[in-house]
């Protein structure tokens, strides 16, 4: 197995996530795209850890998983508050501070 197989797969997932963040209207779908990005990073970390025979890669992947759980919790709470205040979770409508 090449190291690059895993890194390129991570790059593809990352770019799919970037597209989702840019193009999606629904707040929950934007959060799903962020999850794709975080998973791409995790694949890279674990692949490098396995390549270098170093457990640090896995440790950092675990940290990223923990932060992702926290991020989803707060993010969904924000989306919920947005829905409660505006009856819509279209992130393009949240432009009160636009000049």
């Amino acid at each position, binding site marked *: *197995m*090449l*190291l*690059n*197989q895993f*890194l*390129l*797969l991570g*790059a*593809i*997932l*990352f*770019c*799919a*996530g*970037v*597209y*989702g963040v*840019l*193009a*999606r*209207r*629904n*707040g*929950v*779908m934007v959060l*799903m795209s962020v*999850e*794709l990005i975080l*998973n791409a990073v*995790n694949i890279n970390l*674990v692949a490098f*850890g*396995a*390549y270098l*025979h170093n*457990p*640090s890669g*896995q*440790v950092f*992947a*675990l*940290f990223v*998983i*923990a932060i*992702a*759980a*926290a*991020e989803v*919790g*707060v993010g*969904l*709470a*924000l*989306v*919920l*508050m947005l*829905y*409660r205040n505006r009856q819509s*979770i279209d992130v393009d409508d949240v432009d009160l501070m636009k000049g």
Partner: protein
Amino acid sequence: MIAQLWVAENIAFGIIAIMMVVAAIRVVTTRNIVHAALYLVLVLAGVAALYILLAAEFVAITQVLVYIGAIVVLFLFGIMLTRAPMGDMHDSDNEQRIVGAVISAVLLGVMGYTLWKAFGHKQFQDLTVQTTQQVSNSIFSTYLIPFEVVSVVLLAALIGAIVLARRD
């Protein structure tokens, strides 16, 4: 030393990778939000399978428990509580769709080229299983302080989510 061929691993990687790429593209293009969540499950399961392929047992189990077990359920709760339209949405993407596609394609090209230049044909020599014991030794010695900080971050996120989401 003759390089290992890794035939079985490569076949498994190919199947998992194709499944993951298709599912990831469906996550960001499907018009049905529940389908997007279910395709996300497919991607996350593929990532867990890759961790097993890389002999990272503990991270694979954590991936299944935390992502597929908890985060996807949170997403489904979010979909339900915000009463998103369950069927096809015709305005699920905004007008930046073309620009976004171009940006992510350019990003993929640049990243792919750089990765190919940097790591060209580096092979995995041998995949020794990094046991849960080694990982936990590393967490509780080298990374003890980051570990404690992560638990404080989780507590802060918990309190923050409750404060944001409660009705008053």
